């Protein structure tokens, strides 16, 4: 018999490690320790109901367990073989077992990531055993291109790269376009800092993307696929190359696929480190050998794209969903998620959260569930401050948004956006002004420079934010930030400029007080903007040894021997020499 006790941070805070200790001691005392093994596990993701204890082999799950329950569990469950009803997870009157109950309440459903972590991505046999290429075969044998597009339309799938455009509609446009050569392009540039959803799909299940691209080619009459992948993903590139080679060997890419007469092959094109090349027109130009600069739409790529031919561009995660939709049906996919945002979304959870990693949740899951249950809560028991979604194009969501069901429209209404799925959690020690500055630093660097609003405007935004974090900002600067942001959003040529002010506007709206404190009081609550911190001599601890005054390079410390010293903040250059010198820990940074 085994006992698994959750050692996740939330459960540990509720004494789960004491439960383990007590359990082991008592079992030893009663000479049961050879028959029952107690282990600590990672987080069960049921933090609300913790501490969690799972009994094997019967899979009983106990919730809200306290150290005082240890004896009861040993007496009832282990010795008498009876469940401790008061601690049970599932309702004992219902027929469901605990495992079934947990399964049906698992917050995550993996569709795009269905094979990641299960199959060897370098073995096409593994993919085939897991139903691989069945969807492509079905389309070629049983459905017309129009019928296939209808299935995708009916599923309600929307682009997972950030735009959220209905995929079936997009495929329909490309199918209607006339051209002697058409292309299917997969956008694997994934430029958002901290996002690694697409990378994980490409490293863990590359064939799913190849299969989907072939299906897309079938629907629109394209025989050539191109995957634009950033050069910073060497492992993903290697695995794609292996997958393409194997698919060709098996005749699943190339000529006359599965005897249908349909030809389709795929090439890789490597990016060269430009975030703007995640924008579809810039991406296409980059593939053409031109500088990665966006061009105005219309014409859309579906009409005139790569080499001016009809081109359909979709994101990696969008493609990864396609084979599952074909195999399990449009209705099945549409039954998951919300009405306007069907299916699931993969998120890369990062920042000040315990369970950093990849999750895939049905649309409609709330931010609270993602952060505090699946994510295991905030690291080190600190207080939640905000969560940034959508990367440099998104905004931040605060405590009041935590019960927002995640979907495309709700996040936009809340002042942010889904983006490609990066979710960065921030706590009380993060400065929101610094966060906005960080994103502007990124977008300034990545701007292609073609249009003035983005090229010049973002730079001015960055400079103003920098000024504020250095303690030199004024209240006028706050107005400047807001006005400039709106101008940049309204007049930029492409998505990069149109969304780069979002972090600024969102933090101004949600954290106005923090901005005001920075410019009026020259204070950074979070303690991150070093220029706004002050060195302060603690009167109670200062013995007047004069060591600090003697080492100060600007002579801003005054005080007689044996008397409390004081720093003149108007002269202080914040070098920290005084704090380093003080032997009495009488100088602090506030």
């Amino acid at each position, binding site marked *: 018999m085994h006992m698994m006790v959750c050692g996740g941070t939330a459960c540990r805070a509720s004494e789960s490690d004491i439960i383990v200790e007590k359990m082991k001691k008592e079992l030893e005392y009663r000479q049961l320790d050879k028959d029952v093994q107690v*282990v600590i*596990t990672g987080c069960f993701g049921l933090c609300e109901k913790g501490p969690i204890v799972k009994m094997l082999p019967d899979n009983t799950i106990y919730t809200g367990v306290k150290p005082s329950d240890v004896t009861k569990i040993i007496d009832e469950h282990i010795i008498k073989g009876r469940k401790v009803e008061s601690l049970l997870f599932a309702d004992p009157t219902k027929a469901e077992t605990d495992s079934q109950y947990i399964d049906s309440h698992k917050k995550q459903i*993996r569709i795009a990531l269905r094979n990641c972590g299960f199959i060897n991505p370098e073995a096409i046999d593994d993919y085939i055993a897991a139903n691989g290429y069945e969807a492509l075969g079905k389309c070629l044998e049983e459905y017309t291109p129009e019928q296939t597009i209808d299935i995708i339309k009916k599923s309600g799938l929307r682009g997972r790269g950030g735009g959220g455009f209905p995929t079936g509609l997009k495929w329909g446009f490309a199918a209607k376009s006339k051209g002697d050569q058409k292309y299917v392009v997969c956008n694997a540039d994934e430029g958002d800092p901290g996002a690694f959803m697409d990378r*994980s799909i490409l490293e*863990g299940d590359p064939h799913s993307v190849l299969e989907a691209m072939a299906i897309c080619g079938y629907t629109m009459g394209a025989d050539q696929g191109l995957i634009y992948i950033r050069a910073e993903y060497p492992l993903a590139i290697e695995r794609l190359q292996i997958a393409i080679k194997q698919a060709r060997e098996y005749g699943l890419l190339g000529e006359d696929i599965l005897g249908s007469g349909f030809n389709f092959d795929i090439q890789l094109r490597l990016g060269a480190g430009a975030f703007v090349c995640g924008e579809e027109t810039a991406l296409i130009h980059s593939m053409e050998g031109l500088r990665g600069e966006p061009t105005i739409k219309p014409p859309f790529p579906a009409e005139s794209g790569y080499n001016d031919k009809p081109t359909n561009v979709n994101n990696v995660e969008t493609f990864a969903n396609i084979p599952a939709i074909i195999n399990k049906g449009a209705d099945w996919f549409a039954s998951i998620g919300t009405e306007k945002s069907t299916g699931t979304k993969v998120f890369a959870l990062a920042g000040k959260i315990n369970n950093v990693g990849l999750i*895939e949740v049905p649309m409609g899951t709330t931010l609270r569930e993602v952060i505090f249950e699946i994510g295991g809560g905030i690291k080190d028991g600190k207080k939640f401050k905000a969560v940034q979604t959508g990367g440099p194009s998104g905004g931040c969501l605060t405590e009041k948004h935590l019960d927002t069901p995640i979907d495309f429209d709700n996040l936009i209404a809340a002042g942010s956006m889904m983006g490609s799925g990066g979710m960065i959690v921030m706590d009380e020690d993060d400065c929101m002004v610094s966060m906005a500055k960080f994103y502007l630093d990124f977008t300034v660097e990545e701007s292609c420079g073609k249009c003035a609003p983005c090229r010049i405007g973002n730079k001015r935004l960055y400079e103003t934010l920098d000024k504020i974090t250095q303690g030199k900002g004024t209240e006028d600067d706050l107005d400047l930030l807001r006005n400039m942001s709106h101008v940049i959003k309204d007049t930029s040529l492409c998505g990069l400029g149109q969304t780069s002010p979002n972090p600024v506007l969102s933090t101004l709206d949600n954290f106005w007080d923090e901005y005001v404190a920075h410019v009026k009081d020259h204070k950074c609550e979070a303690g991150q903007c070093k220029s706004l911190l002050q060195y302060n001599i603690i009167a109670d601890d200062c013995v007047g040894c004069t060591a600090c005054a003697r080492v100060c390079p600007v002579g801003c410390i005054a005080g007689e021997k044996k008397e409390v010293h004081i720093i003149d903040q108007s002269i202080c250059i914040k070098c920290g020499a005084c704090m380093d010198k003080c032997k009495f820990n009488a100088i602090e940074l506030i």
Partner: protein
Amino acid sequence: MAKVKTLADLRKMKRELQTKIQVRENAENPESVVQVKVGMATSGIASGAKEVYSYFNEEMAKRNLNGITIQVGDMGYCYAEPTVEVLVPGKDSVVFGYVDVKKADEIIEKYIKEGELLDGIIPPNYQSINE
């Protein structure tokens, strides 16, 4: 390499491959093997998964265990890398986190050989539609 010429061929191949997997996992079958799946995506490799993979590969053979080591993609538990999933025929699979060479040795000696669980098991918090 067999070329897959029709959809019927593909389906036949799938069934044969699935049978092979079932044989692998069926405890009653004398050919059943222990499968050790090591997460080898970038987050895993950056945390030392390659070493763990090699260790399992070599040591299971050295210790005369009927087992295979498979590299897989990201299991999603990036905070606990390297992660390893062990499927002993007849038992539910178990995912171990924070696996280094020392832990790998314990997994072989204690879990695979004796059926003893270890600290640091990661409970699965998702369901895949392919399971």
